[in-house]
């Protein structure tokens, strides 16, 4: 985008840009036009030709930074007092990225423009890659990969949720594999959406289900609400799920071998709580949630009514666990007032 209030210098700059292959330039002649133009465009760079007799035109830079903070601003300024004023203003507002002195008699302007555009393009590619990558890995994995203390892992309290399709072995025999695959993806997408809506993080997909964690304040309540929604949603689906929930300490971090090139690591959350949640999920019937009495006591949900299963012996645990089952109907779940 080129912002220049002088028709002559505007046309000169535009011609010079076109000669260098910059054809797609949005030209703005007045700062007043800017807001409307910025609604429709997302410039990578704004070239601002400062006219010394129009000091108020600096507001164009503020407008761009406010509406398009990712855009870099190159200001072309006359030397002398105008340059001092613009530099002082720029230091104060942090709105201008590069100031280039007039007259534009060397390559500096185009070198700066090219460099800034390259940086912008690289940044966009990186953001796009990060977005694609973050779709493939669990939330927290990227920051764990960048962290220098990832070898230690992170210990924290969380509610762990597992879902699993009930009767999937029979289903996959009944329907074409591609249809089952499509149906499973639809179900997992819907489940992931519910978990995100409840501020949970999907850690991994486990074949016919998934594993997620909730670690924010009020996690017992939020996770149980989420589990009930998942169970209820699956009631009328071809792939009904059972859901298991458990709360306790978990360890999150990168698991695998990082010492040899080509070896693979993956982000995971481990601990006894994870095993317990998986076992409870395994016990759940289609459209049912099984959780611990401790989660139920903290969540205090008003409906649906919990059904006590009693003290259940869980494989791998020395003592029995007091368990509760919920079978939500298609009416919404409520909270105890």
């Amino acid at each position, binding site marked *: 985008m080129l912002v220049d209030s002088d028709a*002559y210098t505007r046309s*000169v700059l535009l011609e010079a840009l076109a000669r260098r292959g910059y054809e797609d330039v949005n030209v703005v002649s007045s700062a007043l036009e800017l807001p409307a133009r910025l609604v429709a465009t997302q410039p990578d760079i704004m070239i601002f*030709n400062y006219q010394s007799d129009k000091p108020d035109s600096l507001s164009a830079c503020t407008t761009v930074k406010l509406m398009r903070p990712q855009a870099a601003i190159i200001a*072309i300024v006359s030397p002398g007092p105008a340059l001092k004023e613009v530099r002082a203003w720029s230091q104060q507002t942090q709105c201008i990225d590069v100031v280039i002195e007039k007259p534009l008699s060397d390559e500096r302007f185009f070198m700066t423009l090219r460099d800034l555009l390259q940086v912008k393009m690289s940044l966009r590619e990186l953001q796009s890659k990060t977005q694609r990558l973050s779709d493939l890995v669990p939330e927290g994995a990227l920051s764990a990969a960048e962290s220098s203390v990832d070898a230690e892992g992170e210990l924290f309290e969380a509610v762990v949720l597992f879902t699993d399709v009930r009767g999937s072995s029979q289903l996959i025999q009944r329907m074409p594999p591609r249809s089952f695959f499509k149906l499973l993806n639809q179900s997992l997408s819907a489940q992931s959406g519910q978990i995100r809506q409840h501020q949970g993080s999907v850690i991994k997909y486990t074949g016919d289900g998934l594993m997620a964690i909730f670690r924010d304040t009020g996690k017992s309540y939020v996770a149980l609400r989420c589990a009930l929604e998942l169970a209820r949603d699956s009631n009328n689906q071809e792939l009904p799920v059972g859901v298991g929930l458990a709360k306790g300490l978990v360890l999150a971090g990168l698991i695998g071998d990082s010492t040899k090139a080509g070896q693979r690591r993956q982000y995971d959350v481990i601990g006894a709580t994870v095993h317990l949640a998986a076992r409870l999920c395994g016990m759940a019937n289609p459209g049912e949630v099984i959780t611990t009495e401790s989660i139920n006591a903290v969540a205090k949900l008003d409906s649906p009514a919990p059904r006590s299963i009693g003290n259940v012996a869980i494989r791998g645990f020395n003592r029995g666990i007091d368990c509760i089952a919920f079978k939500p109907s298609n009416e919404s779940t409520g909270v105890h007032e």
Partner: protein
Amino acid sequence: MKERFNASQISKVIDQALVYQCACPAQVCRAIFELRELYEYQMNCANDSANDQQVHNTIALSTEKAHELMEDCLSRVLEIEGWDTTTFNMPETLKKKPAKEL
């Protein structure tokens, strides 16, 4: 130091002579601004000794002379090129000349 052109007038010439030919009038303007800054710097320099004062005075005096010369030069250049010396607007004939390739 006497100034024949004020800062706004000089800035206006530079703003318009952005890329014209070799932007020569703008280069002269730029030199004038630099000389003014150099003069101002000398005026603000601390004089710890008589020797210091002599140094700064010598530089200031030469700067003043150079500034006068460059202002004369600018005046002559603007006259040759046909600039309006009241508004400091670039003449239309110059605007029609092809700009120097940046």
